[in-house]
């Protein structure tokens, strides 16, 4: 395979131990002296929307041993960027999102939003959970409205925005339905609307489309891309599906298995809109997948080992 004219190959960006000194997009081969480059190439200093500064997390397992889940993670996400985090199951991708959301605290290191440290949950970052966590006791409208209610947004404005965001995800007709009456794809869209309605700067998405059939997922990819373009939010999207990551992301960060570390970053500069079936997407994914393969093997080995012990 030769290099495609459209830069279908991902361009590897080696993980840098310290943040703040890395250009976000490289074309061609990574230069040997990475640290010297960014200042010359990008003179304007953009404060990253999200900065993960040497994040580590360890916890005690039920058997009492300490497990290092995340090991010295450094990542920067620019305002309006779509970052996808890929890794084998058990690499701590979800945990990383929980840390950014402020639901847990890292053992060491800092999460910064616009340069300011995160101390707890905040409506400037909304996480869409893997299991969605939609409230079954509320209607679709009630779910979308919930975050605004907690922010004490006046009722009239709340209703208006609920309508707006439901229209945005094509669910206006289902405002008064309950969650269990909806299909999986519709629930995903409710979760999306609920997150967007609090108007967060950063949208954190934890494998939101993993449980969906391919057609529904493709549709939601298109919608997410459109919403991202329309609202200009920063999105951090976690998935184990490399193709999905390439389909959606401006950049893909590859996490290693236990402890989770950023193994490599790839910038994806394929033209949008993209599709899962695009050959360029497939080829780019292929390359990242080769890199990921060794990590998946590690994760599988660990799982089998667990089974033997258990």
């Amino acid at each position, binding site marked *: 395979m030769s290099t495609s004219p459209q830069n279908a190959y991902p361009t590897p960006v080696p993980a840098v131990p310290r943040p703040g000194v890395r250009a976000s997009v490289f074309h061609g081969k990574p230069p040997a002296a990475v640290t010297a480059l960014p200042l010359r190439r990008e003179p304007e200093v953009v404060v990253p929307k999200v900065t993960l500064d040497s994040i580590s997390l360890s916890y005690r397992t039920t058997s009492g041993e300490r497990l290092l889940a995340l090991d010295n993670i450094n990542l920067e996400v620019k305002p309006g960027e779509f970052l996808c985090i890929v890794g084998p199951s058990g690499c701590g991708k979800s945990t990383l999102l929980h840390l950014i959301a402020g639901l847990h605290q890292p053992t060491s290191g800092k999460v910064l939003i616009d340069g300011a440290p995160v101390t707890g949950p905040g409506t400037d970052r909304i996480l869409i*959970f893997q299991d969605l966590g939609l409230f079954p006791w509320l209607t679709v409208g009630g779910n979308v409205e919930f975050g605004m209610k907690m922010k004490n947004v006046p009722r009239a404005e709340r209703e208006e925005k609920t309508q707006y965001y439901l229209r945005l995800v094509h669910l206006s007709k289902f405002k008064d339905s309950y969650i*269990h009456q909806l299909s999986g794809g519709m629930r995903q869209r409710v979760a999306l609307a609920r997150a967007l309605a609090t108007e967060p700067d950063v949208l954190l998405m934890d494998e939101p489309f993993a449980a969906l059939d391919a057609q529904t997922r493709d549709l939601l990819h298109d919608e997410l891309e459109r919403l991202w373009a329309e609202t200009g939010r920063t999105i951090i999207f976690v998935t184990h599906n490399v193709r999905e990551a390439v389909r959606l992301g401006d950049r893909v960060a590859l996490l290693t298995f236990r402890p989770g570390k950023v193994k490599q970053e790839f910038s994806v500069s394929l033209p949008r809109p993209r599709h899962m079936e695009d050959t360029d997407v497939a080829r780019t994914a292929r390359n990242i997948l080769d890199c990921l393969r060794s990590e998946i093997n590690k994760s599988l080995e660990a799982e089998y080992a667990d089974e033997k012990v258990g």
Partner: protein
Amino acid sequence: MKKLARQVVFYSALLAIWALLAKLRIWPPYLFPPPWGVGRALRDGFADHSFWIGIAVTMKRMLIGYSLSVVLGMLLGLAVSSSRFLEETLGGLLVSLQSLPSICWIPLAVLWFGLTEKAILFVVLMGSLLSVTIAMEDGRKQMPKIYAMAGRNLGASGFRLFWSVLLPASLPFIVNGMKQGWAFAWRSLIQAEMIFLSLGLGQLLMMGRDLSDMSQVLAVMILIIILGYLVDGLIFRTIERRLQDRYGLSPA
């Protein structure tokens, strides 16, 4: 419709067998009264207001004792489920106390409160408090953690998190606990009333025995079954079904 038809046939058959056995006079009527004898006892009981008074007195005690145990049980359950220390100490005690039949509290209640209303309420309370507490505690534990996380993520905290997320999220468990608590309270109350001279249904039952009036005994038993069924089978089951529909927990 078919279900209703089958039920009608079943109960008619039951009544017919009862009537037949009574007609055959295998046992004397004062030990085995015919259905119409029990029917007459029911009519007379309501006619001289003794059944009405019995029902009113019993239901009043039930409401007071049960409300008390629901409120206290919920508070206790919340406390136990939110503190590791309480869970390990008080939690264990509560579970072991639950193995004590509530009627065992009667001697203690009589010595403490005398033959008074308070003693009856105490027995009802002890009978249902523990099951409400334990159900509440289980509810807090079994409630999917994601709701609390989603709530915090969307900006809820403190009391609002409790009120708008934790409480509704554990509602199915709470209702289940309340239903169990009702069943226990009902049993405890009737038992307690059978021992005290106290106007309630339990006492009417014992009065039937004292007068060797088997018809009245059966009539009161039927009343107790009907009242218990009305509350448990109709009120609680309806609430439960509504909740299950709403929360998407129902099997169909």
